[in-house]
């Protein structure tokens, strides 16, 4: 039990952030796949301020992608305030990430809705019909949750 605890603590400290594997054949560029993973985890609260991310080299080696791709992801997310680099130490989830998480959540949903809205318009769905559909989906989900 004690040993398990030590191993667990070590595991959490050493592996730092976990990432899903990247699909180079996806229509979504690898840069976007990695960026989205970090943004999503910040939005969902999985990554909290002060969490350390792997170094560019470590993550490139783990995901088997060009180190320049990871460097660009880190650079852009740092510019957006989600990450901060401590000189000579590494890359961390920034202290602003909690405040940013709320706007990240809005941004992610907005992006998904925009794509849905584009399709709705192309199919000639009226604004009213589209809104009704969205409300119905939301209420169906709420009901399913209540039943459980």
């Amino acid at each position, binding site marked *: 039990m004690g040993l398990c605890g030590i191993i667990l603590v070590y595991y959490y400290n050493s592996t730092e952030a976990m990432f899903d594997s*990247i699909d*180079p*054949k996806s229509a979504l*560029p690898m840069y976007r796949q990695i960026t989205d993973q970090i943004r999503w985890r910040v939005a969902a609260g999985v990554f909290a301020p002060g969490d350390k991310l792997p170094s560019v*080299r470590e993550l490139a*080696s783990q995901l088997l*992608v*060009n*180190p320049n791709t990871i460097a660009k992801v880190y650079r852009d997310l740092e510019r957006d305030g989600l990450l901060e680099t401590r000189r000579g130490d590494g890359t961390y989830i920034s202290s602003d990430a909690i405040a940013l998480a709320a706007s990240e959540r809005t941004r992610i949903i907005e992006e998904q809705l925009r794509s849905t809205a584009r399709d709705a318009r192309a199919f000639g769905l009226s604004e009213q019909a589209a809104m009704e559909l969205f409300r119905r989906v939301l209420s169906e989900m709420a009901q399913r949750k209540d039943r459980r």
Partner: protein
Amino acid sequence: MTDSSASPRSTDAAILTHDLTRRFGRLRALDEVSAHVPRGAIYGLMGPNGAGKTTFVRVLLNLINPTSGSVTVLGHDVVKEPVKVRRRVGHVAALQPLWEWMTVRDFAGFMRGCYPRWNPEAVSTVLERIGIDQAATLGVLSRGQRAIVAIAVAVGHEPDLLILDEALTGLDPIARREVLRNVIDAMQAEGRTVLITGQDIADMERICDHVGFLVKGRLVLEATLDDLKARVKRIRVEHPSAGSGQVPGEGEVQVPAGAFQIERRPRETVFTVENYTPEMLVSYDGAGRRAVATDLSLEDIFIDLAQAHMGKTA
């Protein structure tokens, strides 16, 4: 579609060729190839079988002479200064012949004698990670293990340029991942350049930032991967109302000049463009039409371009 056309100087290029041609009898294995591999790049050289990829590598290493044109590697003319070039280049070839009776340790020791620099830790790190016993003779190793030994020895002398010629071809997934991992690790040294040739396009898409396409000895395209993916797109124009099929040619969708892989169906038209701009889509909007652009994977781009160019030169 060269993004490096602005007079590339030899100082910022790891590999620079100008009108490089190599003939074998009447066959032009390389036909006026002007390639520019910037320092620090991971450059993927792709092409169908027999396109000239291995000939290109053999010229770089001065294993064969060019028929005409110039070749500069790391600032040295390969024909005039082949030894200077070879000392700074690590090379891994598919099915590299190794002395079967030699142990891994002896082989590494032998190769060590060929180069001015040697980093024994770099070699043992690579071998230990995949559990290759240095006392084993090369003859008993699997194909994947041999590839790892070859790459371990190739990075041992800390080359400024690492060339992997079809080195991923035919490897099992574990060995392939390990080779890729070693390429990424090898890039840790500043300004180190990797040239990788092969057919495993998804793997190359993972790690390459520059690509070149050879078709029938000609370099038909050279670009950064980002640029290539931004420029080459598949466009689908939906026109459900236009041309009910009653009148042939009625409401036929105009495709931009240079479009290829054009498929016309009754209510949609699909084609690939090499110079995509968002304005292309806008021009189709309205009158019951809608256009969408889809990103292509490197494999799709490769197949489309290869077919387009094979057709042209056939």
